[in-house]
C-alpha cells in the first residue's frame, strides 16, 4: 500500500496549512494593514478570480492563472498610482468587479466539468493539495527572508515614501516587489480561505496584534500567533461541522478579536475601579 505523509491527511495537512497560512498572512497582513492597503488587497484578490476562470478554460492550474492575474493587477494599480493617472480607489473598484466578471464568464464557457464555485469563493479543505501546502511553505520562507533582510528599508519606505526617495533610488522597486509578494500570498491562501474571505485572514490577525503592541515586528509575531489559533481552530470546526473552512476561520478570528479586546477593556476597568476604591479608602 502506498504511504504518504498525507495519509494522516487531515491532521498534517491542517497543521502545516495553518502554520504556513498564519506566517504568510501575518507578514503580508502587517504590511497591508500598516500601510492602509486593505482595499487594494481586496481588489487584487477579486481580480485574481479572473485568472482562476481563464485557468479552467485553457486547462492550466487555476492557481497559476490566479497568480498571474493577481500580480499583474497589483503592479497595474501600483503603476497607475505612482504615475497618478487615475484615482486609485476607482481603479481598484473597477478591477475588483472586472476580475470577478471574467472569472464567472470563463468558468461558464468551460465545456463539460463545472468546478465547484463555492469552494473558490469560500475555501475548502478538500481542494487543498500537497502542492498547495508546499507552495505555501516556500512562500513562508521567501517572505521571512525578504522581510528579515530588508526590514528597515521596507519599514521606512512604507512609513514615509517621500522622504525615502531623498536617499534611495530603489523606492519603486521595493513597492513593486512587495506588492507582488502580497498578491502571491493572497492567491496561495485562496484555496483555503476563499476569494471572498481571504482578505480577513490578512487583516484580522494584525488588528488583534495591535491590541498588544504597536511595534512593527512585534505586530508580525503576534499576528502569526493569532492567525495560527484562528486557522487551526477554524480548520477543526470546519472538519467536524462540514462548513466551508474559510468561513469558520474568519468567524474564529473575529471571535478571538472580540474576546481579546473585551478582556483588555475589562482588565482596564477593574484596575481603574480598584485604584479608585483604594483612593477613596485612603481619603477616609
Amino acid at each position, binding site marked *: 500500500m502506498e504511504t504518504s505523509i498525507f495519509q494522516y491527511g487531515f491532521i498534517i495537512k491542517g497543521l502545516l496549512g495553518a502554520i504556513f497560512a498564519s506566517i504568510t498572512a501575518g507578514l503580508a497582513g502587517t504590511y497591508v494593514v*500598516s*500601510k492602509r492597503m486593505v482595499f487594494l488587497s481586496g481588489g487584487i484578490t477579486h481580480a485574481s478570480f479572473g485568472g482562476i476562470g481563464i485557468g479552467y478554460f485553457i486547462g492550466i492550474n487555476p492557481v497559476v492563472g490566479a497568480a498571474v492575474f493577481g500580480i499583474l493587477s497589483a503592479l497595474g494599480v501600483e503603476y497607475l498610482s505612482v504615475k497618478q493617472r487615475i484615482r486609485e480607489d476607482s481603479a481598484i473598484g473597477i478591477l475588483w468587479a472586472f476580475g470577478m466578471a471574467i472569472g464567472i464568464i470563463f468558468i461558464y464557457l468551460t465545456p463539460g466539468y463545472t468546478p465547484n464555485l463555492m469552494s473558490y469563493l469560500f475555501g475548502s479543505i478538500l481542494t487543498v493539495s500537497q502542492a498547495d501546502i508546499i507552495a505555501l511553505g516556500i512562500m513562508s520562507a521567501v517572505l521571512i527572508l525578504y522581510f528579515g533582510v530588508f526590514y*528597515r528599508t521596507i519599514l521606512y519606505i512604507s*512609513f*514615509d515614501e517621500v*522622504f525615502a*526617495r531623498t536617499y534611495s533610488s530603489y523606492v519603486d522597486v521595493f513597492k513593486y516587489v512587495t506588492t507582488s509578494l502580497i498578491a502571491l500570498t493572497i492567491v496561495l491562501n485562496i484555496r483555503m480561505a476563499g476569494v471572498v474571505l481571504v482578505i480577513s485572514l490578512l487583516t484580522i490577525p494584525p488588528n488583534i496584534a495591535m491590541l498588544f503592541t504597536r511595534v512593527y515586528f512585534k505586530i508580525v509575531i503576534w499576528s502569526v500567533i493569532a492567525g495560527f489559533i484562528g486557522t487551526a481552530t477554524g480548520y477543526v470546526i470546519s472538519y467536524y461541522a462540514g462548513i466551508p473552512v474559510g468561513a469558520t476561520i474568519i468567524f474564529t478570528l473575529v471571535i478571538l478579536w472580540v474576546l481579546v479586546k473585551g478582556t483588555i477593556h475589562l482588565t482596564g476597568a477593574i484596575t481603574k475601579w480598584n485604584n479608585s476604591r483604594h483612593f477613596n479608602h485612603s481619603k477616609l
Partner: protein
Amino acid sequence: MAYLFEMNSLSASYGANVVLQDVDLKVYENDFVGVIGPNGGGKTTLLKVILGLVKPLKGRMVFNNELINGNSIGYLPQISTGDINYPVTVTDIILSGLMIRKGIISGMSSSDKNKAHAVIDELGLSGMSASFLSELSGGQMQRVFLGRAIIGDPKLLLLDEPGNFVDTTFENDFYEKLKDLNNRMAILMVSHDVGTISSHIKSFACVNRSLHYHPSHEITNEDLLAYGCPIQLITHGDVPHTVLKKHI
C-alpha cells in the same frame, strides 16, 4: 570661507512648465539662507534640485566635493509626508536619517542607536524614544523630523516651511535650536513668512521663477518689489521682526 555648492544659470521644469529659470546661487559653510517667494514660485523645487530629486533642464548644480556630497544633506520636508499612525517609534524614525549612508540591507548598530538617543536628548525629546508620532504634539513631531534630518551630521540642512504647524511659543525654541545647529552646518530654509525668520537668518534668496540673492537679513518691501517677489512682510507681536514701512 569655502563654498558648499553652487548653481550656475540653472533651469528646472515639470514637463513644459518651467519653474526655475537661470538661477545662480552659491552657498557657503555656515550660511543661513532664508528662501522666500510666493506659492508655486519654485521654492520647494529649488530644494529638490539640491537633493537630486529634480534634474536640471539646463545649467549645473555642483557640490564642493572636498566638503560635501549628496550624502551629507539633511532634509526636513513639509510635515504631511509620514503617516502618524504608522507603527514606528521615535527612535526608529530618527534612525531613518542614517539610511542615506547605508545600503538597503544593513541594520542599525548600537553606536547608531546611541547616536539617535543623543539626538533625542539634544532636541528635548528625552523619555519619548519609544513613543509613537500620534502620541506627540505638533511641535514634538517637528523635532522628531528635525532629528531625522540632523542625525547624520549633515553639512547642509534643508528645511521646507518648518513654521507651518508650530505654535509661537515652540517656534522660538525651534529657531534658537536652528541657531545652534547653524554653528555646525549651513542652513537653507524655505518659508513664506518673512517676518518671523528675518532675525535668525543671514541672507535671503527670493525665488519667483528667477532667484535674487539678498546678502543681508534686513529686507524691505521695496527690495521685494524690485526682486519681483510678490509677498508681504508681516510683523509679529513680541517676536523680533522686520517692521513694515509706512504707507504713503
